[in-house]
């Protein structure tokens, strides 16, 4: 095991600094902001609103539609060409799958709830930050959901199980890396997103997931605090 100490001095199970906010986009019906380290995601919810085209209507419940987009200057390398890519479409899909299990849209058949996610800067873990921001935005919009989904990447860097990999760890050159984005329903511990790129044994996967539990609770706390802060601020202003 060559990677004993993390390059930025974090403990193995420690996330980067988290900032979460709600109500950041006034034009939207609900919005959220989630920053973890240098990965920053804005999410806006519009709807439920009328769904075009008609042939996509679900007469039993409303549809949840996510659109993930990296701003052109947000990548670690060259400029990201604007417009949808295979990558952004796949991430939009896995985001929908991660969020749908908590969402109750039975009140609005045939309609659609749009969740738009924009990332101004990324330093790995962008789909997880996007899911965490989207949850805040949906709760802020008053969408019925049994919990807010919290997401963070876990993984193995050269034999060390770690939480919240940054770009440097994800691109670690001197050893094997496994990058495992995970989304969890904090109140039940159920997992709604699980992907992996890299190399890890079954035992390592289990260890990495186990180790991340406090991080999910920490993210869930930050998400809840973000919504509450929005309303507490108004109450505070009134008192002054």
């Amino acid at each position, binding site marked *: 095991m060559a990677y004993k100490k993390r390059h930025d001095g974090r403990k193995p199970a420690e996330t980067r600094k988290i900032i979460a906010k709600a109500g950041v986009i006034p034009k939207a019906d609900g919005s959220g902001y989630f920053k973890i380290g240098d990965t920053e995601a804005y999410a806006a919810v519009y709807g439920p609103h009328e769904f075009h085209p008609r042939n996509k209507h679900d007469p039993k419940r409303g549809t949840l539609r996510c659109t993930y987009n990296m701003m052109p200057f947000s990548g670690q390398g060259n400029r990201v060409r604007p417009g949808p890519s295979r990558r952004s479409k796949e991430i939009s899909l896995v985001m929908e799958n991660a969020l749908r299990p908590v969402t109750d849209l039975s009140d609005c058949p045939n309609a659609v709830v749009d969740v738009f996610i*924009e990332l*101004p800067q990324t*330093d790995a873990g962008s789909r997880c930050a996007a899911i965490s921001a989207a949850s805040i935005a949906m709760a802020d919009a008053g969408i019925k959901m049994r919990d807010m989904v919290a997401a963070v990447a876990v993984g193995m860097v050269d034999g060390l199980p770690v939480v919240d990999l940054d770009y440097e760890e994800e691109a670690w050159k001197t050893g094997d890396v496994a990058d495992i984005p995970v989304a969890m329903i904090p109140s039940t511990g159920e997992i709604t997103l699980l992907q992996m790129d890299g190399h890890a044994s079954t035992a390592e996967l289990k260890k990495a997931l186990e180790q991340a539990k406090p991080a999910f609770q920490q993210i869930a706390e930050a998400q809840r605090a973000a919504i509450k802060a929005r309303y507490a601020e108004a109450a505070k202003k009134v008192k002054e």
Partner: protein
Amino acid sequence: MNNALKEHINQALQKGVRLDGRKLDEWRPMTIETGTISTAEGSAHIKCGEMDVVVGVKIDVGKPYPDRPDSGTLMVSAELRPMSNPRYELGPPSIESIEASRVIDRGIRESEAIDEKSLCIKKGEQVWMVNVDVCPLNHDGNLIDLGGLAGIIALKEARLPKLVDGQADFHVHTKTGLKLSCLPIPVTVVKIGDNFLIDPTFDEMSVADARLTVTSVEDGKLCSMQKGGEQPLSIDDIDKMVTLAVKTAKGLRKYIK
């Protein structure tokens, strides 16, 4: 266009009041932060009333165009993402966003603020390609002016990435910035009825008879213009609008440090 809203706006303008209570030549309260995006070579985050725009400058290394082997490139793109306003939908860039991109682009290009020849690394082989991307988070009007102002600020802040074996290392930035010979600022004046106003909101923009974007530099010289809207303008109108735009641009210079 909503005629009832237009009439209502017009009536209020007769009394010198805009829908949000501003005077006709009043800019919304504005804050600008720079260097907010770690992955960009230069960035500015501008908030003006409810308008909220992130602008990033990305400087890549690329091959020059064959017809101009010793010139780098500069390109401005504005995207009207559906996040920023319920009116915008998913899909290819709208004509509105293309116009905004082009107007900001021409303002910077025609002012010759950036000498494209200075962006040459090796003639015919490698040049710096400067991309300015304007991304509104919350769109409430006046994208061209705010994108243009934030764009020039982000360009001023930008630092070239380090060159390692002909490749850009985006994790290490040099101290070298882009040399700006002047600071072009676009200001859009809209005409509603007989009134001229600046810094229009989304609603005001939607009912404007005509608009004129005037980009000017420090000494008040004009470097690009674009007329928009359906109604024609008289020479007298244009004179008033240009004067107001140049005066406003001078006032906005205090935001560029």
